[in-house]
């Protein structure tokens, strides 16, 4: 599973500005890394180089860098970003990733693009495929959002940014609930649940699905508390019957009763199949939420029609 046959970049095959790596352009900067666009000297293949800032962390390497390397080394799938190599230069750690042209957030924001239902289906199918692969390998992504779904030149969608990923916990082993970007965070994490499962990623996928149809974030909460309110306002306050045991979760608070409005009222143009899948992704009880594994069998949204071959986005 580990990429054995990948070209090695250690110092020589990539031209560093000082010792021969071709570093074209800075394309982004996060809290713990700077991303450059580069080229593989021998083949000219475009790559993204993620330079991790090591110096500023007193406790050594940032956790997310370790997570990213740890999981991406193991995962190789057409719908998961590929880690080509890891090398160090001076005091920095560099991750060499495959270069992808755009991400779903940019695509959603670009008003000149018109989405056909088939485009949305195709993106959803690819997201589910990538996610199913992660889950099959016991890895939770824990930061799914349009910004982290990258789109390659040939239209393939790939899961990226495994900085918050982790493998499944041993029984009774606590996991943090401070993960997943707020707008895509499921209610069980907002209630401070420390034992969760693959269902958290599915909720995010549901939010992304809704966002693709609305072209605007579906549940934009301003704070963690407001996120709960926003969620319940949109989907109705869960009852004990709908989601057994949720009132016993550590940070449970009552944020008021909101009535359930049918999804159909908001998503007027969606087909019944799409509404059905959306409601199964946004089910309150994590145990009843659909899983990436069962999704292909579920005869829902992908039943009759069927995502197109990946669309060309320029």
């Amino acid at each position, binding site marked *: 599973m580990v990429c054995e046959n990948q070209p090695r970049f250690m110092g020589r095959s990539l031209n560093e500005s000082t010792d021969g790596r071709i570093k074209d352009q800075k394309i982004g900067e996060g809290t713990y890394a700077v991303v450059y666009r580069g080229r593989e000297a021998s083949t000219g293949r475009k790559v993204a180089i993620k330079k991790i800032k090591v110096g500023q962390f007193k406790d050594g390497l940032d956790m997310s860098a370790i*997570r990213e390397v*740890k999981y991406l080394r193991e995962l190789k*799938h*057409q719908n998961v970003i590929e880690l080509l190599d890891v090398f160090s230069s001076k005091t920095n750690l560099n991750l060499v990733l495959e270069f992808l042209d755009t991400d779903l957030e940019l695509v959603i924001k670009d008003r000149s693009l018109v989405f*056909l*239902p*088939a485009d949305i289906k195709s993106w959803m*199918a690819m997201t*589910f*495929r990538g996610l*199913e*692969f992660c889950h*099959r390998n*016991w890895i939770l992504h824990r930061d799914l959002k349009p910004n982290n779904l990258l789109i390659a030149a040939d239209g393939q969608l790939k899961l990226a940014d495994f900085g918050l990923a*982790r*493998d*499944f*916990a*041993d*029984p*009774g*082993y606590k996991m943090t609930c401070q993960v997943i970007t707020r707008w895509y965070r499921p209610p*069980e*994490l907002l209630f401070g*649940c*420390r*034992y*969760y*499962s*693959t*269902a*958290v990623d599915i909720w995010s996928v549901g939010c992304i699905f809704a966002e693709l149809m609305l072209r605007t974030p579906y549940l934009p909460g301003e704070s963690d508390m407001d996120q709960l309110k926003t969620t319940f306002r949109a989907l109705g306050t869960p009852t004990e019957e709908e*989601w*057994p*045991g*949720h009132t*016993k*979760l*550590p940070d449970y608070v009552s944020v008021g009763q909101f009535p359930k409005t049918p999804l159909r009222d908001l998503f007027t143009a969606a087909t*019944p*199949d799409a509404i*059905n899948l959306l409601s199964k992704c946004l089910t309150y*009880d*994590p*145990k009843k*939420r659909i899983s990436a594994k069962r*999704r*292909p*069998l579920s*005869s829902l949204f*992908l039943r*009759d*029609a*069927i*995502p*197109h*071959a990946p669309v060309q986005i320029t």
Partner: protein
Amino acid sequence: MFRAPLQRSLAAVSKTRQVGPQNTFQWTTNVRCESCIDRLFTLGPAPCPICGKTLRKLAFTPQTFEDLGVEKEVAVRRRIAKDFNKRPEDFPDLRAYNDYLEEVEDITFNLINDIDVPETEARIAKYKKENAALIELNIQREEQYAQYLKEQEDSERLEREQRAEELRRLDEEEREEREKGKQELIDKLETSDKDAIKLVARARAEAHKRASARIASSNPSLSATNLARARATQAAAMPDVPHVPIQDDWYAYEDKYVVRDTYDDPVSEAVRRDREGIMRAGGYRVEEAWERALRCAIAGLEIPPLQGLHAVESPSPDVVMAVA
């Protein structure tokens, strides 16, 4: 509920639970007038004065057909259709579908004519058990189709109403304009000293111009709907590639193990004992931890032992449960 004349008779093609070792159902047919039913069954289930079986008021429905045989057949068919809802596409070929239809007809016939009832009921139960998933799926399909039909109907009705409204508005405008033109002409004829024939001719020409302008202005909306329709059909006509849910060939050893319902596992005891559901409300499933341990153990079986080490530990589930 019963709005018909008081003496209307009600038939009970009732599903009566027969007390017996097999708990089978039996169909009985009774006819009563409404007041008798009220009298006999208001206080709950009571034995039928004729056949002696215990009946309930709820089991009686208004009689639709004069022939009670037909009434019974309809009830039986309704019941059978609920479970035997397979579609032609659920079968590999026409032959299999026809065989299935034949079997359904056999069962229906048996029930209608009270032939081998216990055996037939057993057949139905067996079928229901074997095809539970498919039955459920077909019920869902049916519901979705009904929903779809309803939506389509609604949207058509809305469109019709809008069109009618639009037409009414246009008519109204036209009439008002005509009235106004007429009034203007009369006024002009009153006040002006020009030739009356010329004035009338000009007024007519203006009216004509206005009418054609109105027709032209009502056209764009028509073309807009046409455009939308064209786009929709274009989207529908795009070729669809068959959906392949999983496209990689990563082998997960799933054929090499079966996860049991429970294990003697001290590590997960806290989770399993968690009656309050704190650990489970978030969707945590111990079964996944077990499955992971099992798969990792199986995956390790084919790795040859390392050479040159004197103590080689056999892979065990505990070793592979890495913690992030």
